[in-house]
């Protein structure tokens, strides 16, 4: 990885964090998923580095609580899903992937509770968060549908050389 890429990926991670904080007054609406998909489209597997920066910043600012265990893997699931569809250029497919991720966010976050309080606790955690997952799903779908195409074009303009 070149120094330029290292800096770009760190900035993408910081940008993910910054936008999440800036939009925190609108519950369940953020562009983190859009930016992760965009990072995968441009940088491929190296997007994991940007996500690591984002997660680390979240922990440093909000504290390393139980939720941090979720963050260690939950965003990586989106990176993996995006890597599978990396060559795709359809905004609709990306929107559906982001929507699916938003909908499954609570389910993915409930996994540690299986080990803490068993399956009933994990199920209870997931069910209580379903309204938030639905809002996350809807906002991810709409924001990705609207933003992923223009953002990709912008990134390609700013960064004409393909990642190596």
């Amino acid at each position, binding site marked *: 990885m070149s120094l330029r890429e290292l800096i770009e990926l760190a900035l993408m991670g910081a940008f993910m964090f910054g936008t999440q904080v800036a939009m*925190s*007054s609108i*519950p*369940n609406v953020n562009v983190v998923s859009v930016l992760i998909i965009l990072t995968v489209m441009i940088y491929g597997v190296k997007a994991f580095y940007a996500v690591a920066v984002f997660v680390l910043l979240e922990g440093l600012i*909000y*504290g*390393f*609580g139980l939720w941090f265990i979720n963050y260690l893997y939950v965003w990586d699931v989106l990176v993996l899903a995006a890597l599978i569809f990396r060559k*795709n*250029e*359809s905004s*609709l*497919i990306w*929107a*559906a*992937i982001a*929507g*699916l991720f938003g*909908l499954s966010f609570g389910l993915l976050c409930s996994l540690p*509770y299986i080990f803490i*309080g068993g399956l009933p*606790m994990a*199920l*209870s*955690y997931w*069910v*209580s*968060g*379903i*309204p*938030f*997952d*639905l*809002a*996350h*799903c809807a906002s991810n*779908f709409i924001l990705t549908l609207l933003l992923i195409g223009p953002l990709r074009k912008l990134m390609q303009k700013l960064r004409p050389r393909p990642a190596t």
Partner: protein
Amino acid sequence: MNKSTKTGLALVAVLIVLVVGALLAYHFLSPGTTVGAKTITVTIDHMVGDDKTIEIKTDAEFLRGALEQEKLIEGENSQYGLFITLMDGEKADESKQQWWGFTKSGEYVDTGIDQTPIADGDSFEFKLNEGY
């Protein structure tokens, strides 16, 4: 219709099915609420000042409604509902990593105050904690 449009529409169809499934799961698996008058007990463990036990008579179905009725709380809306920043006059100092948490009859509750249903005779214990 090209291949990517077909794939996109298929994924959207899957998404819609899963959204309906999630709505059904929420409808059938979430705890039920109790309509009508009820009395609950709220204990507040302050960091500064005396602890307090309050009996609340309310028609609210969820804990937030009962606490707001008594003007006990202030907070910020978050993705998990209202995040309490002030309770019974005592503010959680974010710089000291303070936060208001609660239990129900001493047991851990995995829902926020917006989603915790209340029934007659329930008791809740609020405590100002320090450290995340």
